[in-house]
């Protein structure tokens, strides 16, 4: 089996060979951080382009096709435009919190990105509580939304932020519980080990019925947690204008915007790792070509991203009380029942393994 450690070890020995020992650690950290920032930006820009293309495809349009081949550089041009825009703000806003809010979102999504195993050992840090860490980190984002909505001194933004608070807190339960259902199968919270377990079959196959239920709940709750349609209460365009980021402009707006897309990718990536075997190829068909791990990981993740885009461009938006009804009266009880079902299946060894 191919091991990404070969590359990282090579880089490490190269750095150590010519640098004083005192600064190698920090240099490597900066290198990793830069790599992740680049990944973050590229992913964000690509996802925006993908969303626009997918939306166009659903809506009988062509989508961006002027800047570069196939509109490739459209989002880059948009990002440059946003960079050069004036940062306007409301007069009576709480300036400190107003400026702080976007960073909460961007940092939470950046930190979450760091724990994913993109391929074997291609992972910034493989902590033993990976899933727990992801759930915990993704809750930080909502603070940014709440702060942004509250501090910008705009009633529409405030309503959006409060909706977001209520929504994210509710749906985090479902995300957590549906992942917990799968943890029963793996017996570990560590992401690399979760993938190791799946070498004898993806978890969605191993856990069959409860796993499929958990996956469906996970996708619904995940879409809700990223505040995307049909759960986009937060920025319900026809109701609240732009919701919590009404008063943000320029790059601060872009932070919110990028974070939303990266969060979508994170939800898809967790789904890929926990349900669909992460970087493992289906039936081990490309085990002989090991560097394809990255390819499989992104393929699966983007398939799930596409699913979420499909939701967005097909379904109408729920009303805020219906949203809470769905979570507390349907998803949560089903989820609790599902955990028990999964526990019984694991206990009686009814799992499917190849």
């Amino acid at each position, binding site marked *: 089996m191919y091991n990404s450690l070969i590359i990282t070890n090579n880089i490490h020995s190269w750095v150590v060979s010519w640098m004083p020992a005192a600064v190698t650690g920090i240099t490597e950290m900066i290198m990793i951080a830069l790599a992740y920032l680049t990944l973050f930006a590229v992913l964000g820009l690509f996802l925006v382009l993908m969303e626009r293309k997918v939306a166009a495809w659903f809506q*009988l349009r062509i989508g961006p096709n002027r800047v570069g081949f196939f509109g490739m550089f459209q989002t880059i041009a948009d990002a440059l435009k946003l960079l050069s825009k004036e940062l306007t703000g409301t007069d009576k806003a709480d300036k400190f919190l107003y400026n702080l809010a976007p960073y909460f979102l961007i940092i939470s999504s950046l930190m979450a990105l760091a724990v994913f195993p993109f391929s074997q050992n291609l992972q910034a840090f493989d902590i033993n509580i990976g899933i727990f860490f992801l759930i915990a980190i993704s809750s930080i984002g909502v603070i940014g939304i709440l702060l942004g909505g509250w501090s910008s001194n705009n009633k529409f933004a405030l309503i959006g932020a409060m909706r977001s608070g209520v929504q994210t807190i509710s749906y985090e339960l479902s995300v957590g519980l549906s992942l917990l259902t799968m943890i029963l199968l793996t017996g570990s919270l560590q992401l690399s080990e979760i993938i190791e377990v799946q070498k004898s079959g993806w978890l969605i196959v191993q856990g069959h019925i409860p796993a499929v239920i958990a996956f469906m709940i996970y996708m619904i709750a995940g879409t809700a947690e990223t505040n995307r349609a049909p759960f986009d209460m937060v920025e*319900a365009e*026809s109701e609240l204008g732009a919701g919590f980021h009404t008063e943000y402009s320029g790059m601060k707006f872009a932070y919110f915007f990028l974070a939303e897309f990266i969060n979508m990718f994170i939800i898809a990536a967790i789904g890929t790792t926990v349900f669909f075997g992460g970087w493992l190829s289906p039936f081990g068909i490309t085990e002989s070509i090991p560097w394809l791990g990255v390819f499989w990981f992104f393929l699966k993740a983007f398939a799930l991203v596409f699913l979420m885009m499909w939701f967005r461009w*097909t379904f*109408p938006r*729920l009303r805020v009380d219906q949203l809470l009804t769905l979570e507390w009266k349907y998803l949560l009880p089903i989820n609790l029942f599902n955990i028990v079902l999964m526990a019984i299946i694991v206990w009686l060894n009814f799992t499917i393994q190849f």
Partner: protein
Amino acid sequence: METATINNNFKSEEYFINMGPQHPATHGVLRLLLTIDGEIIKKVEPDLGYIHRSIEKMCERDSYQQIVHLTDRMDYLSSHINNEAVCLAVENALEIEVPERVKVIRTIIDELTRISSHTLWWGVMGMDVGALTSYFYGFRDRELINDIFEETCGARLTMNYNIPGGLMQDIHPNFIKRVKEFIAHFKTKLPEYDKLLTGNIIFQKRTKGVGVLSKEDAIAYGASGPVARGSGYSCDVRKYHPYSALDKVTFNEALHTEGDSYARYLVRIQEMWESISIIEQLIDNIPEGDFKVATKAVIKLPKGEYYQKVETARGELGVYIISTGGKNPHRMKFRSPGLSNLSLLNHITVGGKIGDLVATMATIDIVVPDIDR
């Protein structure tokens, strides 16, 4: 005293939101003053006048031929029907009998206008409840009708095809062929509308039981068109006071009794099917003949008062002319369906959520220039 203060401290606070004049859900420049308690609406006050152009006053200055052009700018989505209302009023006053050909063509274009207005409404309705895709589906079909209009009338929005005494010019040679093509196309696309929105569980949850209007209230508030028919109030002017060629066709009045947003939605979907049926009955038998009768260059209506009502896509449009025998009307009044329908808004949305308000406003189908004139 002490307890009273404490209770007061925990009392939820009503606050005030300015929805519009620039807001995505107010379809133009309507301003709504909302009093809200959290998400729950306590009061809705429409504030009108942002697009008031004094059309009624301008009519007193213009000749009857010119007035027709002003009516385009009222309810721009049923401009042809508005034009026809004025022309019918003038023709009745002058006791002109227009050729059969004119009547049939007017009715066909009326119904095409109704379909194009309803497709646009359908798209916007979807957008208001959060399904952006329906907007593009609606526009796809509306564009085809606009193309037909462009060929025949030379315009896509403000058509000005009617003149007192007939039509501006004869229909384009392609007209019949293209209308038939459109009907064949649209018959396959309407079921798609149902697939995308009507059957969707979220959409039904958003609209069923929302903004309920009883039949009595519909009558009391002067509602008309699909809004009233969704409450079971049979009021189709085309049925009760047929004009142009409508007495030659058979069609069903779309009626639903629930009175909620979903019923109003279903009425409009059904109206599109009925319009298709009306066009199909007429398109093959357009009689030969002139496309207008000659009128004097300066039309002077005999002294008196004249009223003509027609059914636009939004409801009953009344044209009321008081003439003193001159070349201009002494006073002109339009009874626009939008204003009466909008007056319901506070009555049926109080107690709902902000999302309900948006869904209800979409099914009332307001066109702001029609309300303000």
